[in-house]
């Protein structure tokens, strides 16, 4: 770019200042929750409020894990967090597998109605998620599958498929068709071509799609609220919501729960972030 040295230096500094400010602003609520989680019950209710804990304590975490100070142990750690993991993990895997099959077909086979079908599937994104909650609740009640992992995993999968099929299909489109045609000529069937040729090559895109799906399902609230009635089958977000009645102003316990719920998905994000950013920047989502 034809820019003077002075302009370049000014650009570099202003970029760092603006982005740095945004980053600081964006991290602030999380940092505040982290600090709050190390405060005592008394300190979270002081006026004016403090940012840093005046004395670091694990009281909040202790109450959250074992119950103390008159609070009984919530089901969050022993039941609801594992539930969240099971629901997110299996629905993400299932979604990726089904979306890979569909995305492969849309990317590689030209058949009548293919375009219309893709648009119809993508159009499902427009349905407000709330629309289906009451019908799904009734279906679940009729089939006696409320408060089961299986049903909510199926519901999450259906919810995630339209977007995931789109991403996976777009990613497959970027892989030249000649590559798996060679494998097909060598005699493998389409499933093998997908399994051994396309999927390894599309791994970054699939990992990005997995992360998108995992984050969404980990954080999902409304379907879990409606479809999971049994406290031991609830997910962590619903469990945290219930803190309103059980923990009221014990904000340090809330904060500890916020941090604990965040950590697993943060770890997965940090592990996959390079692949994720690369896949997204390659244009995993485009028109």
């Amino acid at each position, binding site marked *: 770019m034809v820019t003077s040295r002075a302009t370049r230096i000014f650009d570099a500094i202003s970029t760092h200042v603006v982005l740095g400010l945004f980053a600081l602003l964006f991290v602030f609520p999380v940092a505040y929750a982290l600090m709050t989680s190390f405060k005592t019950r008394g300190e979270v209710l002081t006026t004016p409020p403090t940012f840093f804990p005046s004395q670091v304590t694990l009281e909040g975490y202790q109450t959250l894990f074992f119950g103390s100070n008159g609070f009984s142990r919530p089901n969050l750690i022993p039941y609801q967090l594992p539930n969240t993991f099971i629901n997110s993990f299996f629905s993400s895997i299932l979604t990726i597998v089904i979306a890979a099959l569909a995305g492969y077909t849309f990317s590689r086979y030209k058949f009548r109605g293919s375009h219309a079908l893709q648009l119809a599937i993508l159009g499902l994104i427009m*349905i407000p998620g709330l629309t289906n909650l009451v019908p799904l609740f009734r279906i679940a009640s009729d089939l006696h599958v409320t408060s089961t992992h299986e049903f909510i995993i199926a519901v999450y999968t259906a919810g995630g498929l339209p977007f995931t099929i789109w991403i996976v299909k777009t990613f497959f489109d970027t892989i030249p068709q000649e590559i798996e045609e060679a494998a097909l000529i060598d005699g493998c069937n389409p499933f093998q071509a997908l399994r051994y040729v396309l999927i390894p090559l599309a791994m970054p895109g699939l990992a990005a799609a997995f992360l998108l799906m995992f984050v969404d399902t980990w954080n999902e609230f409304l379907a879990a609220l409606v479809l999971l009635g049994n406290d031991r089958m609830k997910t962590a977000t619903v469990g945290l919501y219930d803190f309103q009645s059980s923990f009221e102003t014990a904000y340090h316990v809330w904060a500890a729960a916020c941090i604990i719920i965040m950590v697993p998905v943060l770890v997965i994000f940090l592990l996959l972030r390079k692949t994720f*950013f690369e896949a997204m920047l390659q244009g995993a989502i485009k028109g």
Partner: protein
Amino acid sequence: MTTAVQVAASSLPQPSRPRRRSNWLPLWFLLPAIVILVALQVVPTLYSFYLSTTTIKPTDTGVTDVEVGLDNYATLLQSQTFRDSLWHTAVYAGSFLVITVALGLMLALLFNRKVRYTGFYLVLIFLPWIISDVVAGTMWRWMFQQTYGIVQVALNPIIGSSLYTSASGAMAIVVAATVWRSLAFTTLLFLSALQTVPTEVLESAAIDGANRFQRFRSVIFPLIRPTFFIVILLTSIRGINSVGLIYSITKGNPGGATQTASFYLLRTGWEQGDFGTGAAVSVILFLINIVLTILYVRYVGAGVE
């Protein structure tokens, strides 16, 4: 590429006989997706359409659905609360859309300057994206709590009143929280589009004397238009459909000031058990989404597949 294929190909099981691509294969590969989408998306939605023309009546054994035609819609459209909630949706989704697109584009342009060591900021800005609405809502509610809220107390000397309990203040809080949650993703979409703009084109435009704004308007924007279209479509739908943050920050308060149509749906259709009215609201929202999509396709996405 070639090596990857060779490696991949060499690990293949040896075929016993040559196979042909059969025409019915697409069907088998699409079947799982279609079955699950029909069973858990299409059927429930149609069921919801049907429910929107019914109302529940208590019977000896429990409750039953009674068909009432379009009564639910008529009642809704006459209801001041519902019309207010539509207006709140317009304010909430509209400001969310404008702010997210403006800031997302700005941040993407900054990241795209390829100044060194900015990758770290991207990771930090992504932090809110991985947090759930309930966790985020909890954090935001505290920050604006009247007496213990760290942000509210810091703002007191400037504005002097509680944001959380004023109608426009509460709306500002939920909009800000929603922008905070989704800005990173929008930035990433814009950044991915900006990276496809060839540097040579920008350079020649600069040589021709185009300033930054002109370069953006006549070179960059036309090239990122497809992404722009997708971003405003996804952001609008998200703004209209999502309730998680409102549910956990304000619960529609104060006095219904942050009660959007989606929240109204949740309240009547789920909490109050008035399935018919809730379903009618969802049909109305679905129609709004379709109309918006058609408008966007016509006016923004022209030329986009």
